């Protein structure tokens, strides 16, 4: 049980971190969108966010976690 809690905590932390670093923070306008193999960063962000929501849904039944 303890390991499960730690695993869930780690997953949530990574998802929260990716949400912040890809979608929050100071925005620089009129500049470059990084692209790799014709998949630009905005699309990469959307994919990661969809994954985040799905994983969060799976985690909903877990106990309260206070950890980063």
């Amino acid at each position, binding site marked *: 049980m303890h390991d499960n809690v730690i695993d869930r905590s780690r997953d*949530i*932390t*990574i998802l*929260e*971190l*990716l949400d*912040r*670093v*890809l*979608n*929050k*923070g*100071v*925005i*620089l*306008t*009129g*500049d*470059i*969108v*990084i*692209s*790799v193999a014709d998949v630009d*960063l905005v699309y*990469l962000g959307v994919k*990661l966010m969809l994954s985040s*929501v799905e994983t*969060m*849904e799976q*985690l*909903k*039944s*877990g*106990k*309260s*976690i*206070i*950890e*980063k």
Partner: protein
Amino acid sequence: MEIMIYALLSVKKKPERLHALLAGMNGIAGADLHQLSFDEITAVVSNMSRASLIADKSTAMEYAAVIETLSKHFILLPMRFGSVMESNEAIIHMLERNYHDIQQNLLKVERKFEFGLKVFCDSEKLMAELREKSEAVSKTQRTTVAEIKNSASRIWVNKKLKEHRLEELLVTYVDSVIAEITGQLDRLKTISKIKKMVTPTTIIDGVFLLDKALKDELIHAVGDLQNKFPGLNFILTGPWPPYNFVDFTVK
């Protein structure tokens, strides 16, 4: 060759401390970090080749790690991943053009950290409980609906009324939880941003900016909230750099 920007810092009287810190750190793909300044504001940056950059999860995490480390030593505004400019000169000009906004935002987050709070529910169970309440309300209002003579219309109106009551009860319930949360956290002088009903199971998604010294009190307050709402699942994360509290776009 372009320049990746990680964060905007208030260095003030500690430029040598930043210099020493950056000497022991690397940016994404192992790149050297350096600083570009205008007056009291500094941008931490690294050279990068757009063609060689792999914009994947691990790179995003490397980027975040730089911001995380810097945030332990300096007041900063994190840049969104992918903030790239063409030259050092362009970045210095950007700092100059946006100096006032950057200063104001740095002042707002001084000695503060961000925390995230998500509240999940078992949506089926919660909706079943609210449906029971809704049924009780509908019994008291039956006479109004019964005035409609056409049975097909009555069925349709009844169905719509039930859905509407259920939605109202859900919103009222979520608002009551938010009121409890803000009531608990307002005494910690937090600045908050709260979204409700993000998904059927994520009923609250909030971020809070509060003084570093109040971290333990926040954890305690969220523990109290969890005890008060045992049917919900409170998840608190942090402390984070203030990603959600930088309210401007640099030009």
